[in-house]
């Protein structure tokens, strides 16, 4: 802890802890919101370049103020509640989507010290919070009183639930390898003298792929965006939403994308550890890895056509779940032999 804070700590007495935690939350949530805003810009720019366009470049230099303009526009817009909609649920649904997406960040370590809550069951907490997000989607689809929204929320509920299983098994292998549920310990478990060869993506490579693809599916991103399915069910569960209510879904989706990127880098790509043994570890490595994974998200969106709903379920149940189940056993056996080097 920083010494210069001690006089303030003494002065506030028992009120110190909540205030200090609140401060930490603000320090994480505000940059996260900024990151979400600029991720939308990055997405438009990157996909624009892939599609021989230039992307936004009118608002500010290189379109740098575009996210702010978009945010302001959405803030000023009316939130239209359709007639026949359940008003209470309609309003609460976007909040239910965004809140868990923000709450997960409590246990995400940025480097060896920087974490709001160093929980021992961090991985469990992440799984629990990430699954809560689906309620917002289901409620939004049901409360809108629209057939498109209803279909979208049905699809999305089925999708998120089935991909969560594969994702859970992928995480089981990680916790077997790290012998811990604490996210900080998982990163420390990947420390070693060989740099990136010590990271878990090598022994757990199939799980790395399963986890990342499930993560893409879980965040409803292309090619798994059947819940939104622009050309089929228009915008899916949020078709009736406007203004800030829509923006909350949007923020939730992008915050989740960033979260999946963070978790992928923490669990498989060594978090803040440097890939080469002679370079110092640090938070910068974390951000580089996250940026790389986020770029993959955008790349997928520009490249792939969309899965059909039943094909996506087939991939989840018939490919990913068996593969991850088998790999759990393989890792279990492997760890009992002397060939386990991690």
């Amino acid at each position, binding site marked *: 802890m920083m010494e210069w804070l001690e006089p303030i700590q003494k002065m506030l007495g028992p009120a110190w802890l909540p205030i200090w935690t609140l401060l930490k939350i603000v320090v994480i949530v505000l940059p996260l919101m900024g990151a979400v805003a600029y991720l939308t810009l990055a997405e438009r720019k990157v*996909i624009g370049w*892939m*599609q*021989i*366009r230039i992307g936004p470049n009118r608002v500010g230099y290189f379109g740098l103020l575009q996210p702010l303009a978009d945010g302001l526009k959405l803030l000023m817009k009316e939130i239209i509640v359709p007639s026949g909609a359940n008003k209470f649920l309609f309003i609460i649904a976007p909040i239910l989507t965004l809140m868990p997406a923000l709450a997960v960040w409590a246990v995400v370590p940025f480097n060896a010290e920087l974490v709001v809550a160093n929980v021992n069951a961090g991985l469990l907490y992440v799984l629990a919070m990430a699954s809560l997000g689906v309620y917002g989607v289901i409620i939004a689809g049901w409360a809108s009183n629209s*057939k*498109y929204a209803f*279909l979208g929320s049905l699809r999305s509920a089925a999708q998120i639930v089935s991909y969560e299983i594969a994702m859970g098994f992928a995480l089981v292998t990680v916790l077997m390898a790290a012998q811990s549920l604490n996210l900080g310990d998982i990163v420390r478990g990947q420390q070693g003298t060989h740099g990136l060869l010590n990271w878990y993506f090598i022994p757990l490579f199939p799980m790395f792929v399963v986890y990342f693809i499930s993560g893409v599916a879980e965040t409803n991103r*292309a*090619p798994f*965006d*059947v819940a939104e*399915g*622009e*050309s*089929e*069910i*228009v915008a899916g569960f949020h078709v009736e939403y406007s203004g800030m209510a829509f923006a909350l879904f949007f923020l939730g989706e992008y915050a989740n994308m960033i979260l999946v990127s963070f978790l992928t880098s923490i669990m498989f790509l060594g978090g803040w550890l440097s890939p080469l043994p002679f370079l110092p570890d640090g938070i910068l490595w974390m951000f580089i890895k996250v940026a790389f994974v986020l770029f993959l998200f955008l790349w997928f*969106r*520009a*490249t*792939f*056509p*969309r*899965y*059909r*709903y*039943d*094909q996506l379920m087939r991939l989840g149940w018939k490919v990913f779940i068996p593969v991850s189940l088998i790999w759990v056993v393989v890792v279990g056996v492997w760890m009992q032999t002397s060939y386990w080097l991690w």
Partner: protein
Amino acid sequence: MPEIKNYTMNFGPQHPAAHGVLRLVLELDGEVVMRADPHIGLLHRATEKLAEHKTYLQSLPYMDRLDYVSMLSNEHAYVQAIEKLAGIDVPIRAQYIRVMFDEITRLLNHLMWLGAHGLDIGAMTVFLYCFREREDLMDAYEAVSGARMHAAYYRPGGVYRDLPDTMPQYQASKVHNEAAIKRMNANRQGSLLDFLEDFTRRFPKHVDEYETLLTDNRIWKQRTVGIGVLSPERAVALGITGPMLRGSGVEWDLRKKQPYAVYDKLDFDIPVGVNGDTYDRYLVRVEEMRQSNRIIKQCIDWLRANPGPVITANHKYAPPSRESMKQNMEELIHHFKLFTEGMHIAEGEAYAAVEHPKGEFGIYMISDGANKPYRLKIRAPGFVHLSTLDEMARGHMIADVVTIIGTQDIVFGEIDR
């Protein structure tokens, strides 16, 4: 037990995949389509009735607006019907120009189709790649007729004018500096034929690019193989034509079976599918683009070597040159009659069909000898294709309905007319 009822969903007309103003009433069991009921008429403009009240030439621009992504092919059928009825001889150079622009139009249509079809299935990037190439073809339209879409370039008896020797140039602006303009104008220094030749050289590589993104893509194949299967017998029975029919393995192409213009002098192949599903129709259309490129190349070579008149010298149907009109009483009368009354077509009836990018596009015309058709009937391929939507979509899922609308290449301008 409560009765479980099917779910009815209104798909369009305000729907991103409705390709214009298609209203589709879907009866769903979960996500499975039990019945698809397309409603038409939202873009009805009474083209056939309007033609009865306009002179032959005044109706011509309406043809552009039927299938508004393959403009000149529509015009070709219309002028052919008039030529057949009046017995007008078309100069050979005009026929080559028409064939070249028919094939450019086929590329325009297929590029639009590929982009929209890709976008419907979720492959966003193909759309923008296709539009990059469409831009050049639109420029060719513009160079020859002044309009980028609704060209109104064909005339009974030929085409409006010969191909231009210069291409329009980009001008420097706030957005593009001198260097960028120079690069953009690099292939526009010569004539239209030079510009098109440059395009035909680049185009096969671009088609390879689309194919890299789609043809072997697992997701693309999962979304298209076995979707909307049409057996050859059913396809023929339903009156399907064009790439839809060839996708089912029936080798029927009017350019080969009843050659019009100069198609019998050109060397090209007709691709056919095997399974009659969406994927085969995709492959057929992609191969057709390559074949069209071949035809354009041959036309360019011929047009370079053979200058000549591009419109008939029969001044009952085509206006005389400005110069002779000023000096010659006979021509002055022709000019006056043509631009006041329009042409008179001999009594009779005729049907002329072309291999339109979407199928057989036909014009059936009855003339009572006046300067307007007595009756004009348009045989639009899209109308027939849309009528099979129910049969093709039944038992598939909602996402497949979008795929099937895409593979039918529906454009509402010609369906509603």
